[in-house]
């Protein structure tokens, strides 16, 4: 039997002339988290929909728990829980009503379904809103209820499609805790995100996906080594000093500084000691700073690093150094 929690090989999905997935290989071992990182339209949601038996595909294979998602769709549905990008809830029912309904559809007896629903409402801090229609919930409450809904059947494989979108920072921490609890219980998770920070915090391995292809795959530390791990962001108080600041950043890091907004510069660095060197040189040259920070690269910088730097995130062509990224992964 397949020892992967889920696995796709050469997955191809076309919508008319658009190719959403152009041969995607994704896999995760039992009890691990695969982070799928990519911009909007990269194919993340399509990949999840295929694995969750919601959509068909044109070529390749997709298996969950060793079961084919097409031939054994019904058995696959017993193993999975899905939290989509759009809350998959019945607005007119209460929070409790939604969860009980799902429990009943999962063949739980009524009292068991109610008990399970209450347990999950407590766990997601929704006990006070349990008897209110979902239509009255805030965006963050819906996301939490949606996540709870996907866990009613104690799924072995959980698909989370950009679960942190619309969550307050504090609630995002809660979400991360839930994901960690899931894997601690032995479940496996596929999590899509646009934030390297999130993938780094949760995933055992990360697949970077763009234009329907996996352009890099590896552990977070392998990936961070490729993309330069951290980045320094600096915003000189005087916009006229941007040129001087860029020269310093380039000299210290050995990478070209990228302007991410009108007055901000970002450059990938290999280790955090660069920060002190940059700070020293800024002081030497008397460049006053409005903002100065060390952070994990954003999606744009990840793509910049993975695609060779000659095509920005706004216009990503075929990756040039995919082979490098793959071989190091």
């Amino acid at each position, binding site marked *: 039997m397949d020892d992967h929690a889920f696995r796709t090989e050469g997955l191809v999905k076309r919508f008319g002339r658009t190719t959403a997935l152009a041969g995607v290989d994704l896999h995760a071992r039992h009890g691990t988290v695969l982070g799928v990182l990519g911009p909007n339209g990269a194919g993340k949601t399509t990949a999840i929909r295929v694995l969750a038996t919601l959509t068909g595909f044109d070529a390749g294979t997709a298996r969950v728990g060793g079961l084919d998602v097409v031939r054994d769709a019904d058995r696959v549905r017993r193993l999975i829980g899905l939290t989509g990008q759009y809350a998959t809830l019945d607005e007119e029912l209460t929070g409790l009503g939604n969860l009980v309904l799902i429990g009943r559809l999962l063949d739980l007896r009524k009292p068991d379904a109610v008990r399970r629903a209450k347990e999950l409402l407590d766990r997601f801090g929704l006990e006070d809103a349990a008897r209110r229609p979902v239509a009255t919930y805030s965006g963050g409450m819906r996301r939490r209820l949606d996540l709870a*809904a996907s866990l009613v059947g104690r799924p072995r494989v959980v698909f989370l499609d950009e679960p942190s979108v619309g969550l307050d920072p504090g609630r995002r921490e809660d979400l991360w805790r839930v994901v960690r609890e899931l894997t601690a219980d032995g479940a496996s998770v596929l999590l899509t995100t646009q934030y390297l920070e999130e993938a780094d915090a949760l995933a055992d391995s990360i697949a970077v996906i763009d234009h329907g292809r996996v352009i890099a795959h590896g552990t977070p530390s392998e990936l961070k080594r490729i993309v330069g791990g951290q980045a320094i962001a600096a915003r000189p108080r005087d916009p006229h000093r941007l040129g001087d600041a860029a020269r310093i950043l380039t000299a210290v890091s050995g990478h070209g500084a990228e302007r991410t907004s009108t007055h901000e510069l970002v450059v990938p660095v290999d280790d955090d000691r660069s920060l002190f060197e940059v700070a020293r040189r800024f002081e030497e040259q008397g460049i006053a700073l409005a903002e100065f920070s060390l952070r994990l690269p954003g999606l744009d910088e990840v793509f910049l690093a993975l695609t060779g730097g000659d095509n920005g995130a706004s216009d990503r062509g075929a990756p040039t150094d995919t082979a490098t990224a793959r071989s190091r992964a």
Partner: protein
Amino acid sequence: MTPATPTATPAPATADAAAPRRPARLLRHSLVLTGRSLAKSARNPGAMLNGVLTPALFLVLFTFLFGGSVAGSTDAYLLYLFPGIAVMGAGLSGMLSSGLAINIDMKKGVFDRFRSLPIGRSAPLLGSILADVVRYAVAVALLFGIGYLMGFRVQTDAASALGAVALMLGFGFCLSWVTVFLGVLVRDENAVMGFAFIAFIPLMLGTSLAAPVDTLPGWLQAWAGVNPATHAMDAARALLTGTPADGSIIRTLVWSAALLAVFCPLAVAAYARRR
């Protein structure tokens, strides 16, 4: 299933052992979804009352406006009119609610939720339609109450009256698969609504509802003669007031079966394919 991992993991709540035979599961899941639909009706009874108000309005208007001139007295006319109105109540509720509810569900995420659960593909459809049958029953019961207050009395026996109610509900059930099919096929809920509204007039009024078919102009007679709602109304009239059935019961049953046989598979296929 998943191979055992060294850490003790709780058994999935939905293990294969808990999966009884398919038809029984389909029915149970459908009934759970019926409960969902009815719970929503209980919260928002306005939508359901539509299926009662329109026929009730026709009943009152026609009886008191035309009753005297058409049948000589309002009491005599009520006897003629009421069975058709009851059929309208059952049919109209079906046309308006089923297709619309499904159309709205499918556009919302809840549709994906259902499809990612290990339930039969047709369970959400069947559940919604079974809930409708309950709603028709409520509509028909309310109409009988209004008819009773206006002076309508069943002229036959209890068995025939029950037969009439069963026939109306069966007809409404089969008819609603047409709007269910449309509701699944068409993206825009207003289009579904519009179709139901436009179809309502020829289907329910181009019949023997207000006057016998042979009093209608030729072109309308031709339509009313093939219209399944005419047969259902004639059959209900025969069962409730003892007029001659003239094969209308059989024709209603055949029409109902035909509608079901054509539109149920179409709707289920379209539903399963939508993604």
